[in-house]
């Protein structure tokens, strides 16, 4: 119970600090709005199932604030329905990537020796493999239609960069007096990693998690755009891909049909980056005045 | 004889969020031709700021509130107001007239350039020797600082030890024959034997080449060994200045006394060793009156309200303390 309470107090403090940082606060608000819209919105505005051939590529109106697409369906409604999958994949990928990277990175730094050498070389090799082509080739074979499967593949491809940074961080934390003291006292590896080192890396991990999410959004929408991931149903990537392939970007009337998914993806990416940059400033006050 | 550098009413502040850090407060003294002056004090007393201020190398958030720095290359030449030099004149002034060796010689060299290139850069900036003539001049300086020119000239900084790098820096500082050399804690990062070696090199150099030396240090034994005169700084202010024997044998400021008592010597009894109680003041929010009074064993009511200025305690010995007669 006490740890939960301590955690809540820390969370409260962080939120207070965030509220003072305009960029981060703005990012947080946009992000929360997008999440609400994607989860609550569909309950209020159910998806359209029929196409309306009389209303193809309409401009903004009271009935369709963002216009309509090539089937005459409302763009705003599609945006509301198309965020959930993207958010879920981004979040799961972010968590998995961070988990793998933090575990392997800190173990590598902590254990040293042969494990560290093998890990370092593995990461080096992994980073030279062209990630997106490999991802695309895998996607053609695996018929990725499942959120979890895609998230796992993304995480397996994305962890090495972060793992290398975590390793460097842990190596420098290991030099600190209190960690050296814990090592001398022989408090055990799990204790040292989870009690002494990790708490000092939480902010760093949180920020990395957000950046991992932006990476996942980039990759998944890219795959969808290339038509390699047959994710069923509404999705901003699918919307964009359809808008592009049906030639909507060359039709002035279809402006809303292109801008809606572009805006949605851009806002999501920007809100995450704003939040991450704000968090960096909050946790690392040296950046604030940046000497 | 006219002094090499005459410092008058120099005041330097740093603008930070909380307010103004008063790093150097109204300091006036002369650095005489060819003398070694040791500037001593705890860390945070403004010594380094003073050194950087003389070179006008202060970071952008620092401001020189007032003062004057008059420099004369020799007795016959006109005085130069360092604080009024424009950018070009300042670049020409630096290193040619006043050179400085920094605290961390380890990082004072560009890691990707050879020592020879860094000498060439300096020479080129001042239209000095080049090519073989420069190499010959450098070899001469390396010999003076007891380095093997062959070993050092073509080396990268990281290939040299800390002590070697510091001596290369001293050689580089002397390249243009400056009249004043500022050494800012030049031996802090080095082991005791290397420290001793550097001090010996410096002693030898000042007899061979006639230049003034401002030796900034918190290490009193090194200061005593090298200096002709000693100046004590506390909370950005000069509190005592005099020749080395007077200062060490009959100091008149309780802070100087405290500093000397805090240093162990081979002959002194351990129980005589005392540290100064308390810690240096917050330079943003200074105490009233004499800035040392909260830590001073002799503090009186007057010390709390009025700040003493330097006054003559003897010929060539000045002290800023209301109660110096009592010491």
């Amino acid at each position, binding site marked *: 119970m006490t740890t939960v309470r301590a955690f809540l107090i820390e969370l409260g403090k962080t939120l207070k600090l965030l509220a003072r940082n305009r960029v981060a606060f703005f990012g947080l608000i946009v992000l929360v709005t997008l999440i609400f819209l994607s989860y609550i919105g569909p309950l209020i505005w159910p998806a359209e199932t029929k196409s309306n051939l009389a209303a193809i590529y309409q401009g903004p109106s009271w009935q369709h604030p963002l216009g309509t697409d090539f089937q005459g369906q409302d763009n705003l409604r599609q945006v509301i329905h198309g965020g959930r999958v993207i958010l879920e994949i981004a979040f799961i990928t972010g968590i998995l990537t961070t988990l793998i990277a933090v575990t392997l990175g800190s173990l590598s730094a902590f254990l040293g020796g042969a494990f560290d050498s093998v890990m370092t070389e593995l990461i080096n*090799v992994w980073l030279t493999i062209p990630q997106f082509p490999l991802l695309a080739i895998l996607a053609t074979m695996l018929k990725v239609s499942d959120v979890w499967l895609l998230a796992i593949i993304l995480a397996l491809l994305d962890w090495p960069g972060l793992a290398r940074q975590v390793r460097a961080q842990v190596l420098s934390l290991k030099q600190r007096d209190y960690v050296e003291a814990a090592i001398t006292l022989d408090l055990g590896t799990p204790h040292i990693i989870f009690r002494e080192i990790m708490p000092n890396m939480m902010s760093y991990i949180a920020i990395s998690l957000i950046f991992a999410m*932006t990476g996942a959004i980039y990759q998944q929408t890219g795959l969808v755009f290339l038509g390699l991931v047959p994710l069923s149903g509404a999705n901003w990537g699918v919307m964009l891909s359809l808008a592009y392939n049906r030639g909507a*970007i060359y039709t002035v009337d279809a402006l809303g049909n292109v801008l809606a998914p572009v805006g949605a993806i851009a806002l999501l990416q920007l809100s995450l980056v704003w939040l991450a940059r704000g968090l960096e400033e909050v946790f690392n006050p040296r950046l604030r005045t940046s000497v | 004889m006219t002094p090499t550098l005459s410092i008058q009413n120099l005041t330097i502040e740093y603008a930070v969020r909380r307010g103004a850090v008063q790093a150097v407060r109204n300091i006036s003294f002369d650095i005489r031709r060819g003398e070694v002056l040791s500037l001593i004090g705890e860390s945070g007393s403004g010594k380094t700021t003073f050194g950087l201020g003389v070179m006008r190398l202060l970071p952008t958030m620092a401001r020189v509130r007032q003062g004057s720095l008059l420099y004369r290359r020799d007795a016959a030449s006109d005085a130069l107001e360092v604080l009024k030099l424009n950018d070009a004149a300042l670049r*020409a002034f630096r290193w040619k007239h006043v050179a400085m060796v920094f*605290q961390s010689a380890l990082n004072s060299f*560009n890691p990707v350039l050879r020592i020879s290139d860094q000498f060439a850069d300096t020479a080129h900036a001042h239209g000095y020797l080049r090519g073989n003539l420069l190499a010959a001049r450098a070899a001469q300086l390396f010999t003076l600082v007891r380095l093997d020119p062959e070993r050092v000239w073509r080396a990268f900084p990281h290939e040299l030890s800390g002590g070697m790098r510091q001596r290369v820096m001293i050689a580089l500082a002397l390249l243009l024959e400056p009249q004043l050399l500022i050494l800012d804690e030049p031996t802090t990062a080095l082991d005791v034997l290397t420290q001793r070696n550097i001090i010996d090199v410096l002693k030898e150099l000042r007899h061979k080449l006639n230049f003034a030396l401002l030796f900034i240090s918190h290490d009193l034994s090194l200061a005593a060994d090298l200096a002709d005169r000693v100046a004590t700084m506390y909370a950005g202010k000069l509190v005592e200045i005099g020749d080395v024997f007077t200062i060490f044998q009959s100091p008149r400021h309780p802070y100087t006394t405290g500093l000397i008592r805090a240093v162990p010597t081979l002959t002194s009894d351990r129980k005589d060793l005392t540290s100064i109680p308390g810690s240096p003041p917050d330079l943003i929010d200074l105490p009233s009156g004499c800035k040392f009074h909260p830590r001073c064993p002799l503090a009186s009511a007057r010390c709390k309200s009025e700040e003493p200025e330097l006054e003559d305690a003897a010929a060539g010995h000045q002290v800023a303390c209301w109660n110096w007669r009592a010491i």
Partner: protein
Amino acid sequence: MTTTVAPLGVDRTWLARLKRIPLDDLRYLVRSVLKSLFTIWLVTTLIFFVIRLMPGNPVDIFVQDLLLKGLAYEDAQTQAASMLGVRLDRPLHEQYFEFLGNLAQGDLGKSYISRNVPVSQMIVQRLPWSIFSIGTALLISFALGILLGMIVAYKRNSWIDHLLTNLAAAMDALPSYLIAILLILLLCTVFKVIPVTMTRGAVSPGIPPGFSIDFFVDVLQHYALLAFVYILSRTGSWMLTMKSSTMSTLGEDYVTAASARGLSEGRIITAYVGRNASLPLVTRLALSIGFVVGGSVIIESIFVYPGIGLLLSQALYSRDYPVMQGVFLVTTIAVVLSNFVADLLYGWLDPRIRIAGEAK
């Protein structure tokens, strides 16, 4: 250097030169070469087994496809084998060695779709376009990023710093294909500044390739928007890295010492700040140059630009596995090679690194 002419003069000078290279450097070189070879082998092996052992194994699918088209099993097998350049009836490990052997001779198999066209030939045709377009755009964005990063670091906390830093962070966050689509939408559809044909392909049909002004102008017109998108989306990241690198370099003692020595501002900015601050970016640039060989899959697809990226995206679309495998391998080899060059370059640019490499 005229010494007595010996019968083995050439060999001797060569040997003498070799002997003059310090042993540490030689060891560093050998290690880098071995590491590169190992990586290439590992990636080759990985892609071989991925393509043959995955659940949706494309080799079997291809054979089944041919069977459905009415070919006999034997014929289907031989045809698939000839495309992949491997005899499918052999055990897997023999296929593997055959595959490696072919690869060593530069044989990447033949395309499933464009029958009997060697993959290597397709790649060689597309390569110049990617290297021209993405390559120059990369160099421009790198140079721009270095320049802006230093300006912003020198002028930190000024309005120009706030403006450029926020802009760079936003550009870095936006996927490049969003920028591409937005620009096409704005410039071609809404404001009609650029004709749509300029955003598709590398040259207009009907203009004969050659050293003519028409051809040259046409190529540049098709290149401009694609390059602009790439530069917009990549410069931000270079700039932000350069900014933080420059800021930490500015805090170094050797920069203060350089001003104390009276060096000119220009010399300090270039040789003292710029050179040290850009060191970490040089390795990243070398790596990125390797990735140029693979083109940019999504941007090239949007602009239908006939580079390697478009080749890959077409192969992905038609499930042309020999082409995918070929593009992937060529890209990886290019990345490994540029990584190797980066290693050497870094050792040359930063004299400290050789020692550090040995200490590890």
